[in-house]
């Protein structure tokens, strides 16, 4: 009686529409590779953008998606040879212990760089390569410059685009150009430049030309505004809290050059060669302090106050604006090229903007707050599995719209967020 009472599931027809998804290749940089928690490690790869997409494509007849997997038990490795970040406890210079990202091991698993994973019978679908710059897309020496590519390259003279297209993909995703912006942003703009509009175009154009010459179906992604990521927004510009004595001593130092401090909240002090005679000023709203800043020095050694923050820890308003303006120009070009090639376009920048505003997925609230926001991994830049699932859904929606397919989006509640001890 009880069983007879169970409602029946309706039968939804999923379809590939006009798509041929038998061989899907995801081309991109760090964000495509599955790199997260500041490392390439197995779980991240299993939840990479391409892997999530490929699994959904399977529902409508998509083929196998092979990845250059890191070993299950590996602690992973970052671009700086560090292990993946996990949430743990850290005791600071004030002897206060609190929850904080810490490295899973004292060093990264460099053994993965000695691997040679290429297998012609199982061509990789994930050509997301951590740290990939468009300038090296056709460079035959790239495997000697990028260890992450080296372990998956078909030969020592292989090129990224050459290898990616070697298996004649029927469908591709192209999400490149972000690593270049990120390099600039993570350097605080110091000794770094952004690609000019024409430089970007000159690099992007041959890549998309080459890829679409092999696969006429695909999706191109715009680039998010990186300045909205938690890496640049966790420490507030006005987080300098002063008591009376500290305010007075700072006033004694800085009043002569026109800076004033009050009891309570104050803007941090930074180096800025363009600021007056002394090249020192206080931060203004909209300026960013990077997560790379040594917090103990801030807390105990007067960094950001008596000792101004150095340029490498700061994105000034000018730098923030150049990142935003450049990203917009790049995105205009990507949009135009996607139209020209008659492929789908996913406005990844819109997704990140909605995340900045806060989104709710089946009762899970997600926002750009560091650690607690739920979508970013512990590096404050790359998405975690749940974030990737949500971004993959944007890809799927754009693909469905372009190719009259009906590929289901993924249930983001089935993907992990941040793991708490």
């Amino acid at each position, binding site marked *: 009686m*009880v069983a007879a009472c169970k409602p*029946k599931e309706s039968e939804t027809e999923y379809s590939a529409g006009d798509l041929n998804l038998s061989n899907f290749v995801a081309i991109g940089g760090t964000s495509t590779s599955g790199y997260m928690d500041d490392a390439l490690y197995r779980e991240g790869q299993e939840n990479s953008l391409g892997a999530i997409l490929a699994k959904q494509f399977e529902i409508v007849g998509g083929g196998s998606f092979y990845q250059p997997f890191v070993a299950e038990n590996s602690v992973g490795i970052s671009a700086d040879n560090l292990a993946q970040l996990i949430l743990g406890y850290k005791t600071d210079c004030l002897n206060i212990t609190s*929850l904080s990202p810490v490295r899973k091991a004292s060093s990264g698993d460099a053994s993965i760089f000695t691997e040679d994973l290429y297998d012609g019978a199982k061509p990789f679908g994930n050509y997301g390569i951590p740290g990939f710059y468009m300038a090296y897309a056709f460079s035959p020496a790239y495997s000697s410059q990028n260890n992450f590519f080296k372990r998956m390259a078909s030969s020592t003279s292989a090129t990224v685009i050459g290898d990616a297209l070697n298996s004649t993909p029927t469908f591709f995703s192209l999400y490149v150009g972000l690593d270049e912006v990120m390099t600039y942003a993570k350097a605080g703009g110091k000794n770094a430049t952004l690609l000019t509009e024409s430089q970007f175009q000159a690099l992007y154009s041959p890549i998309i030309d080459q890829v679409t010459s092999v696969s006429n179906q695909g999706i191109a992604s715009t680039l998010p505004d990186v300045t909205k990521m938690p890496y640049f927004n966790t420490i507030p510009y006005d987080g300098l809290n002063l008591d009376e004595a500290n305010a007075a001593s700072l006033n004694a130092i800085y009043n002569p050059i026109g800076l004033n401090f009050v009891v309570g909240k104050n803007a941090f002090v930074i180096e800025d060669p363009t600021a007056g005679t002394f090249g020192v000023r206080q931060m203004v709203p909209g300026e960013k302090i990077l997560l790379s800043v040594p917090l103990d020095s801030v807390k105990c050694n007067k960094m950001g106050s008596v000792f101004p923050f150095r340029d490498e820890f700061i994105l000034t308003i000018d730098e923030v604006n150049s990142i935003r303006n450049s990203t917009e120009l790049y995105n205009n070009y990507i949009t135009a090229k996607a139209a020209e090639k008659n492929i789908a376009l996913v406005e990844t920048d819109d997704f990140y903007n909605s995340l900045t505003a806060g989104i709710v997925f089946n009762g899970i609230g997600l926002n750009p707050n560091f650690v607690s926001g739920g979508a970013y991994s512990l590096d404050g830049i790359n998405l975690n599995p749940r974030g990737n699932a949500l971004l993959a859904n944007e890809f799927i929606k754009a693909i469905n719209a372009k190719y009259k397919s009906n590929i289901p989006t993924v249930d983001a509640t089935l993907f992990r*967020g941040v*793991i708490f001890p």
Partner: protein
Amino acid sequence: MNKLLLLGMTFITGNILFSQGFQVNFQGQKQQGMGGAGNALPVDAASVFFNPGSVSFLKENSVNIGFTPTFANTLFEDANTTSVGRTNSPMGTPFSAYAVYRKNEESKFFYGLGIYTPFGSTIQYEEGWTGRFALTKLQLKSIFIQPTLSYKLNDKIGIGAGFVYTIGNVNLQKDIPVQDADGTYGHAELDGKASGFGYNVGLFVQATEKLNIGLSYRSQVNMEVAEGTATFTVPSSLSSNFPSGTFSSALPLPQVATLGLAYKLNEKLAFALDINYVGWKAYDTLAFDYAQNTASLIDTKSARNYKNTIAFRLGTNYSLTEKFDVRLGLAYGLTPVQNGYVTPETPDANRINYTAGLGYKIGEHFQLDASVFFTHLKRTDANIETNLSGTFTTNVLAPGLAIIYKF
């Protein structure tokens, strides 16, 4: 400054809601067999609930005890993904017990007592379902205790009134989207006892030999949870963010005004129609006030925005023989839940109820009444608070039995 990392950590506690579940219209087996109508048809002691005014027109003293095991199954199909979720709710256990007594046949007063469960249900979803952060389980129990006095003004008119004391219990559970190293999610359980007061009044008019008219009004009952227990199971690093402790809340059980008509075509065949007007509008907000707040655990106020609704209940009783009665009924109810507000607690929809019943007299004093109830609900919605978007399909099957002793 590492404390910065966790500032502003809130986890959508705003959608912790309990709700009315199903309004349960299982207060009398005869009436259940007739679509739930009975306001203007005083056939047994269940009139204490249906219309206290009509109690004075009952013919005998009696005790009436009934039970309706309720089997509800809900299926959720996500609109955007391949995820589905089912309930594995335990059997619902609405019951009713009534006693009516008058000194002798000349007495114009009837004393009555009703104990019944007009609101409450348990809905429990299978483990790991996609709406787990909105709800995993809601158990709402309420028992109304109603001493009643009914007075026969004359041969045509009866009035009655009952005082209602309500006791109840609510238990709401959901997962919290914070995971430990095993991937286990946090869990919240809110449990509290509630109580409230109200009344039930009625007017009954035997307009003609064949036609009865009834009016009844059951007041709103505010169920106050003064000191509930909130228990949070979270990764140890977050235990101070989610301190277990007490909470307070309140839930209105709505007022119901009913117009009833009954028509006796002949000795064998009777029809009854009830029109209920249900004041669900009272349920506009659900608030939880935690005794101890943190950045993660804030007091919540959630818009419910229920609207007042109408239900039509139509039934017929046919006396097959002296001993056997057969009944059929149909009801149509409009949902109080507006688009955008459908939750897993109340996957409600406009509904048609189909009912049937049997009555059998055993000797002079005993009578058995059986009924069966079926309804099918389907509602597609995107909840504005959780963004849970999809279709809830629910089947409810409820067979019931009552035994009546007349004296």
